[in-house]
């Protein structure tokens, strides 16, 4: 038990992402309302983004933009431990964009479904398909 708490605390960024991820996953599978599924999908993607970004963090570091970046100081010694890891940020910028795009497409399809079936409840759609 004594080891357990530090273990939990040491990775709490991860636990937060995990909880969000599971909420999203559950929602995507279980929800009957398609719009809620889309929302869950967004939560799911955000959880992964959170996970990535948090792993690039370093204690006591700042954003990855070089201080004194211009002028004659430019080439002065740079200490990598001062700056957060830029790579996860880059990756997640891409992932955010992908997420937004997927969301847009999903919403468009959803509008179409609503127009065709008159509902966005999954069970009602299935009924109307069977008819």
């Amino acid at each position, binding site marked *: 038990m004594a080891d357990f708490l530090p273990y939990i605390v040491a990775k709490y960024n991860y636990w937060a992402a995990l909880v969000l*991820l599971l909420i999203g*996953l559950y929602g*995507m599978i279980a929800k009957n309302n*398609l719009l809620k*599924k889309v929302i869950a*999908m967004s939560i*799911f*993607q955000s959880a*992964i983004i959170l*996970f*990535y970004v948090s*792993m690039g963090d370093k204690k006591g570091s700042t954003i990855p933009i070089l201080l004194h970046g211009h002028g004659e100081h430019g080439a002065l010694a740079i200490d990598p431990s001062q700056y957060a890891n830029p*790579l*996860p940020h880059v*990756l997640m910028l*891409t*992932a955010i964009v*992908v997420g937004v*795009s*997927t969301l847009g*497409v*999903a919403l468009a*399809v*959803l509008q*179409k*479904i609503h127009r*065709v*079936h008159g509902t966005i409840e999954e069970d009602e*759609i299935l009924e109307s*398909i069977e008819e």
Partner: protein
Amino acid sequence: MTAAQFPILILIIPLLAAFAISLFGGRRDKLAYGLLLAAMSGSFYAALQTLLLVLETNIPIHYRLGGWAPPYGIELVIDHLNAMVLCLVSGCALLTAIYSLPTVRAEIPDRIHHYYTLYCLLVTGLAGMVATGDAFNLYVLLEISALSSYAMLARGRGNAYYATFKYIIMGTIGACFYLLGVGYLYIKTGTLNMADLFRLLAEEEMQQSITIRIGFILIMIGIWIKMAFFPLHGWLPNAYTRASTTTSCLIAPLMTKVSVYIMLRLMFSVFSVEFVYGVIPWHEQIVWLASLAIVAGSISALAQRNLKKMLTYIIVAEVGYMVGGAWLANESGLAGTVYHILSDALMTLALFMAVGAIIHKTGKSSFAAMEGIFRKMPVTSAVFVLGGFAIIGIPPTCGFFSKWYLIRGGIETGQWLFVGALLFSSLINAIIFFRLIERAYFGDLSGHGHGPLPERDEAPAVMLVPMVVTAAALVIIGLYTSEIIGRIVLWTIPAGL
């Protein structure tokens, strides 16, 4: 520009063509069509040149994007395996592009140029996934191909929206699992380049790390969802059945095959033989699952009364072939899988094209459409028959030889369940296709063949030519099996197997 630039041209030509079509294609359909053909031909030419280059030197081509050395920049790595798959992707895309115009005009009344834009983007995405040597770049391209395929599938015949929506949800779960898995690899290794990951993951500490193992499992599940591996296949049949003809001709042969390629790539270029078959002790169980996939897919296909839906279930079974072959953990099985990527894509393409032409001409997609087709559309039905023979695995079509290797792999490892499943599915396929051929041949159930004969009403030449080419390829590739196995497939077998 030199020969060294061919790898990137495979992707860039369709990409730029996509924008060109969206800008200028709106004026006339023919212009959009012409641009599409030009782009696909260019891409195919570049892919062929790349393949020849690889075959000549037998060394993988590394192409540094932006000139940055990996692992800092992104690179394309083209070896025997993906050179072959690239040719396959661009070749199938070219054939489908030629084939597309009549059906697209009939089924997609407006905004053909946007449809063709998406077509190009999809091809770019698929080719990019195959060519890349970077795990995260793979994700981005996966999403491009996914998004464009959502759009193409949704513009299907009748009510395709609900099926597409399910596909979006499943596809996103798959892609996110993959992304999460890559995150796990990144957190332990700090790199995203595949070769670099391979080097770092070979270390003893990494081999034992539970994070890496679970990362691997997540990646595999993600890819399996994407390739519709049983029991994660639920989204595929509905989505593909309702798609328009050209869409299904493009997506059905390529999507699952590219996913299988990605699985192989990740198994052997990111992880290693020892890790995949040694550290993860489940390869036997996965082969059992694959056998189940084959049996379930075949039986479901047998139960269908709609041509396209039947074909989609055959795809589910074929995915089982390839996953099973890859996890047999021996050379024959893997060679069979790689060869089956090639042959299955072509036979699926031939069948979807033939069925598309039949639907185009008869307006029906149920089995009733097949009645008397032999007289009405002799060439189309010949293609259909040949494609069916390849699926059943009748020599000398290429389907026989891939099955040959897969069964041999099963026998060598003693996976009798898998061998049985393969034979079972061959028999079921034989029943399925001969039932259809019988209908096509005899015509109306009550007729005696001496009544008035149906008029000959063949599909237009633009549809026939690619169909015939594909069907011919089935036999030609079958006859050149030994060449293909020797010069390409055996090079893809990782060391240590």
